[in-house]
């Protein structure tokens, strides 16, 4: 195997217990400086992992307070202002400092260069700078949230954010603005890497699907984030100057802000969910030992989602007084964007057909993703119907819908990916029992938390309510109870994953018997990933053991 690394599933020899290599990226250098000044994409991924996990815990703490407050209809636990600041903090942290960066910066940073067979990303220094930008933006935002807070919600709708709010709007906006450049630079780095750094033989159609979806994500990050940056700048200028372009007193239009905001914030939903889909494509194939069903369809579905995702933003504004005509156009386009997602779900399901399915932890999370994402997507179809959106817009129905996509979808897939690549990142295996238990707890807790919210929403409970009519209490209590289960499910991996660092068994280069290039190098990988540049000679998912080829 000295000339080229040949792909293909080779069952691991049982006689030889896996060993950890003597030198790898984690022990090649020691000390704080070796981490904070590293340009190794793998170490930067670990830096992101730490930052993003800390922020997830903070956002989760805010969610816990929200759910506790909603246990009683009169909201006795928290004053109204505190509650408003908490749901704003929850949204801001979770969207911009967890969901958007989590998969690209942690898993993408670590895996993407290895998947393409490169020694690093195209711009390693820029990668480190992105982490610093992200961290600085995060610290500013956190400071704004902790020192007084912000109560506009994560959407910063004008004129509330520019005139009425009496909280730290400007520092929060600055923090988000700064961290936005981290997104842009990460996207830029990924696109350049995918275009110019692929290993010999790695043609576009031999790329693993995670790379296709990362590519689509990066394009969105590159083209949508600047629009948000400017929208926020305009809000900041108007607030600081006392005069500005969304000001109805001057003839300005508050709805224009919503257009700019959702032009970013709708595509960014796909930034969250596209890489998640990529992870699931990797895992489903690996654990059913089958090539993906319909590679081309799944790959182009990612591109389709990225393109169509830019054309549906105004479906967030169906009740904001837009013309009937434009509402109809955006409703129709919203149905179109559902098609590629449907393709992916059907193709994943078809991949299982006649497979050899084993239920390791990553696979459990991935199957959970398909189930929950499907529900999120289908309720999205209900929302795209103008007549129904009129009723459920800005109610808990929306809350439940997007949590199915973002938590049931993105977070489930992130957990799947983290458990899938954890042995590669650390060289250690985690507890099989505890990890499967946590997958189960998260799934059950999630359903319990968010299913009642669909009912609440159709009953008419508006979102962002600190107090609510007493008849909604039982459903809210159910939801809060589910949230406590969910919290346990998320804390459990924190314990056994950290535990695995010290007591986990050595994983070996390829514990799952997977085919990607990243599995052809030791775990943890050497500092430059591959001792020699790999040469790719086949497609990404050569798992099949029979030579029967399906007729197209």
């Amino acid at each position, binding site marked *: 195997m000295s000339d080229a690394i040949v792909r293909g599933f080779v069952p691991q020899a049982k006689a030889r217990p896996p060993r950890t290599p003597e030198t790898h990226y984690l022990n090649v250098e020691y000390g704080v400086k070796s981490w904070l000044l590293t340009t190794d994409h793998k170490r930067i991924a670990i830096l992101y992992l730490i930052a993003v996990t800390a922020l997830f815990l903070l956002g989760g703490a805010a969610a816990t307070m929200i759910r506790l407050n909603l246990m009683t209809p009169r909201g006795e636990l928290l004053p109204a202002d505190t509650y408003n600041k908490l749901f704003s903090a929850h949204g801001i942290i979770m969207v911009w400092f967890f969901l958007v960066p989590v998969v690209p910066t942690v898993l993408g940073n670590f895996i993407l260069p290895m998947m393409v067979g490169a020694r690093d990303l195209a711009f390693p220094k820029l990668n480190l700078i992105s982490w610093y930008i992200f961290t600085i933006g995060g610290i500013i935002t956190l400071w704004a949230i902790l020192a007084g807070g912000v109560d506009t919600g994560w959407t910063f709708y004008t*004129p509330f954010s520019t005139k009425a709010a009496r909280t730290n709007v400007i520092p929060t906006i600055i923090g988000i603005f700064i961290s936005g450049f981290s997104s842009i630079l990460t996207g830029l780095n990924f696109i350049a890497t995918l275009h110019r750094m692929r290993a010999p033989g790695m043609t576009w159609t031999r790329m693993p699907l995670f790379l296709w979806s990362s590519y689509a994500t990066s394009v969105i990050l590159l083209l949508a984030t600047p629009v948000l940056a400017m929208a926020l700048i305009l809000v900041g200028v108007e607030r600081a100057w006392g005069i500005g372009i969304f000001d109805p007193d001057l003839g300005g239009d508050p709805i224009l802000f919503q257009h700019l905001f959702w032009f970013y914030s709708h595509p960014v939903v796909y930034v969250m969910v596209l890489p998640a889909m990529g992870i699931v494509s990797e895992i489903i194939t690996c654990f059913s030992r089958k090539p993906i069903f319909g590679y081309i369809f799944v790959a182009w579905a990612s591109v389709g989602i990225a393109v169509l995702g830019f054309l549906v933003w105004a479906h967030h504004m169906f009740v904001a007084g837009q013309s009937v005509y434009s509402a109809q156009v955006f409703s129709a386009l919203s149905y179109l964007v559902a098609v590629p997602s449907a393709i992916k779900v059907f193709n994943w399901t078809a991949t299982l057909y006649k497979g050899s399915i*084993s239920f390791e932890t990553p696979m459990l999370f991935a199957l959970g993703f398909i189930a929950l994402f499907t529900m999120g997507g*289908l309720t999205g179809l209900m929302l795209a*119907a103008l007549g*129904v959106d009129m009723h459920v817009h800005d109610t808990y129905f929306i809350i439940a819908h997007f949590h199915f996509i973002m938590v049931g979808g993105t977070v489930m897939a992130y957990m799947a990916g983290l458990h899938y690549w954890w042995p590669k990142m650390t060289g250690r295996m985690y507890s099989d029992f505890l990890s499967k238990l946590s997958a189960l707890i998260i799934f059950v807790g999630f359903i319990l938390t968010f299913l009642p919210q669909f009912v609440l929403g159709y009953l*008419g409970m508006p979102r962002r309510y600190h107090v*609510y009519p007493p008849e909604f209490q039982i459903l809210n209590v159910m939801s809060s109870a589910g949230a406590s289960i969910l919290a346990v499910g998320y804390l459990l991996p924190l314990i056994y994953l950290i535990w695995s660092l010290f007591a986990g068994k050595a994983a070996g280069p390829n514990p799952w018997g997977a085919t990607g290039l990243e599995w052809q190098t030791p775990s943890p990988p050497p500092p430059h990933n591959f001792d020699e540049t790999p040469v790719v000679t086949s497609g990404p998912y050569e798992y*099949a053991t029979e030579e029967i080829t399906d007729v197209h």
Partner: protein
Amino acid sequence: MNAIFADVPLFPERASTTAYQVDALFFFLCAVCGGMAVLVAALLLYFSFKYRRRGEDDRTPRITGNHRLEWFWTIAPLFVFVVMFVWGAKIYTSVSEPPPDAMEIFVIGKQWMWKFQYPGGERAIENLYVPVDQPIKLTLASEDVIHDFFVPAFRTKIDVIPGRYVQIWFRPTKVGEYHLFCSQYCGTNHSQMIGKVFVVERDDFRKYLDGRKATGSLADQGWQLFLKFQCNTCHSSNAEARAPVLEGLANNMVTLNNGKKVRADDGYLRESILNPEEKVVQGWQPIMPTYKGQANEEDIIKLLAYIKSLKPGQTPSRNENSSPPLDAPRVPPKEKIEPGDRKPPYQPEGQNGKP
């Protein structure tokens, strides 16, 4: 256990014609989407069980796709989506066009309360009374930030955006007491910007209004404001008038000085009070000062009611002693327009006639 769950509300009350339409579509969507969810879940479970790994030596076939099947599940959903889209769009469109016989009630949202003004001049806060089986058209304005008028039992809502009028209508079908929510986040007491909608029998509605004892109808109150702001100084509807005649203006077409024609609807009239130079009627000078800051949203609603009630010959004559409004230009317009040259600023048309 059963006793607890018996109290769990699962479905909201229905109290408007729209509610039945929305629910019908919702049930359809639930059936189709629920069916799809069950299908996917069943396939996942079935495949997971049937093809579970039985040993390390399992053989798996090399199935890389089936284009016919994939095109099928790419195209097939589109047909279902067309049904969903058309159905949804139909309801949305019907809700956006109030019937001509609708009773108009004005609603003003401000942090954090709802205010209502009935055509008879009666005012209320928090609780809206409407007669059953009567189409109600609400014209809504906001005094500060964006609010949203949401009555779950009517299955309809609309964002109330500062700087413009928005409209919504419904036809209550069932007597009762229903929630009114603000469903667009508007600050500290957003969750307490709530109220009740009382759908009552027509007689009870009349009694309710009688009990409110208005100091004159909305139009009467508008007439008082009309005099207070001395609108009749210029809008005097006689030969010396320096501004267009307002009688019979409302809801008819107006030709502007740039040649465009617009309908003099509520939004136009409101804009003409607050930004008079924006849309100037053909043949007139842009001399009117803005009333921004002098007339609040409630005042404007009253003025509009008055303007809409004006019949030919009813404009109060100009009182020679009255001074022009504070900001009015001191010099009258230079060129004198011959009466014969002046085209009527609007062409009277039917109530809902299209140009």
